[in-house]
């Protein structure tokens, strides 16, 4: 599948934003948020800014962005529509929470609102994952671990952002830092299991099934239907060299999981230069996430390519 930069930016930026919103709302709901009111306000502003940038980027992917409002209508059947509804719905509790922090107005009801905010953030990210996870045409995407990893990546990137923001003002503790390192490690384990599943899945459909001509022997393309690639080949037939993919996978492992987890564990152990180590983790994770999301598209193989010479899909 063709990796569209707008979609990569959307899923990584809004994923991190929803992750940060999730952790900070969760902390607020249980009254366990360290730091003061203004720091919480700062965190919610950063989260909403990332979410908004991501959602605007996703609009760039549309051919007719001016009609985007129509996409809230089909939530009964479409995960993309559900995601839009959930994304907008999350602004309501997040906005209320932000206003209460801005004006310093507190009431016990805001613990409930914060809990709703955390739940909505998680639902939105799950919907994003299911847009891909529900497509049976792409075996690398049609796996239960796809939405799980979207949640895990969002949780990990949000946690690192949270740690960075709070460590700037010295409000992280070794317990929080170890927990963040653990979340990153967990996301890494999900990704590695997912890669193993992908390697084991060679594809159940063949060119013979696609054309229905298996009884006559092996199907081999002779003349293509068009002289240059069409939309289907450009969009669905995007291929990345195997060698390239292996290098990028190593890059993802190192940047997205190993460096951030070690940096943050070091911060917990050393108890010094904490925000510097969080900054290292944040930068490394950002690069790792973009590489991961690019690979997620580039390595995805679409069934329609069976008509264009793919043997299995």
């Amino acid at each position: 599948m063709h990796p569209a930069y707008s979609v990569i930016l959307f899923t990584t930026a809004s994923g991190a934003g929803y992750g940060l919103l999730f952790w900070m709302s969760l902390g607020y709901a249980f009254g366990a948020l360290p730091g003061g009111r203004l720091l919480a306000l700062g965190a919610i502003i950063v989260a909403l800014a990332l979410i908004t940038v991501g959602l605007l980027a996703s609009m760039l992917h549309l051919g007719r962005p001016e009609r985007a409002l129509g996409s809230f209508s089909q939530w009964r059947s479409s995960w993309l529509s559900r995601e839009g509804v959930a994304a907008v719905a999350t602004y309501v509790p997040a906005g209320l929470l932000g206003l209460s922090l801005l004006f310093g107005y507190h009431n016990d009801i805001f613990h409930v609102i914060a809990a709703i905010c955390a739940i909505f953030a998680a639902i939105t990210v799950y919907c994003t994952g299911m847009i891909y996870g529900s497509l049976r045409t792409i075996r690398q995407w049609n796996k239960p671990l796809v939405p799980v990893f979207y949640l895990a990546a969002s949780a990990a990137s949000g946690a690192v952002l949270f740690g960075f923001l709070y460590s700037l003002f010295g409000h992280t503790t070794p317990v929080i830092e170890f927990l963040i390192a653990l979340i990153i490690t967990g996301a890494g384990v999900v990704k590695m299991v997912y890669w193993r599943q992908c390697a084991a899945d060679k594809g159940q459909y063949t060119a013979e099934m696609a054309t229905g001509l298996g009884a006559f022997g092996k199907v081999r393309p002779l003349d293509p239907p068009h002289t240059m690639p069409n939309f289907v080949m450009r969009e669905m037939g995007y291929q990345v060299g195997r060698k390239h993919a292996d290098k990028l996978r190593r890059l993802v492992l190192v940047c997205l999981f190993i460096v951030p987890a070690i940096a943050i564990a070091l911060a917990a152990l050393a108890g010094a230069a904490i925000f510097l180590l969080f900054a290292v983790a944040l930068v490394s994770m950002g690069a790792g996430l973009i590489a991961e999301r690019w690979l997620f598209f580039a390595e995805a193989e679409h069934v329609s390519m069976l008509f264009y010479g793919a043997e299995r899909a």
Partner: protein
Amino acid sequence: MTTLPQTTAKKLGLVIDLDICVGCQACATSCKEWNTSGHSAPLSDHDPYGADPSGAWLNRVHSYELGEGAEGRTVHFPRSCLHCEEPDCVTVCPTGASYKREEDGIVLVNPDTCIGCKLCSWACPYGAREYDYDDGVMKKCTLCVDRIYNETLAEEDREPACVRACPTGARAFGDLADPDSAVSKNVAAREGFDLLAEFGYKPTNKYLPPRKTTSAHVNPIPVLKSETVSKPNGSMADKLFAWADQKLSR
């Protein structure tokens, strides 16, 4: 609503005979010609006369090679939307622009509400939908919905442009829900099949297989009488020709 209709009154579709398709591209060209000014207008092209031409077409004709040796054959293979009974291209649509008609089962895109998110093309295993970069919306076979009910056209023209154009009669149009229709009878007689039936979208369009040629029916390459070499009879002339043949063959 992008949820699918429970049943459709008719199942209008195409039956494509792979035994007689000659791969002339008349169906694809005729489709482009009609639809670039019909329901799906425009079907934009980019660099059409240059080095990297591309554009939205609703029908594509592949040619495949099958089998080995005497069993080998070429099969021309037209591919367009199959107007499936249970396709995800309809249900994934966030706006309801992609829909399946209850009255005849035709799958259409509403060009006025499509936002061009391309998700429907991702959900189609047949690669049947093509995005129009200029128009910003998805394009697909409409089964010439603007011809088949069009009373301003002569009756013989009220069928899809691809069917009308096919010079060999390899394409037929009809109601596949009606077991007595000509297309249904032909599908039954010729063991018509679904493309990628394993995927489960239940395509309406059917394909008729190429007729089998068994080894017994494959004629050996005949040796023409005039080409059979007569045995030398030992005459002087024979010896002369043999000598000339030898010298000239060096």
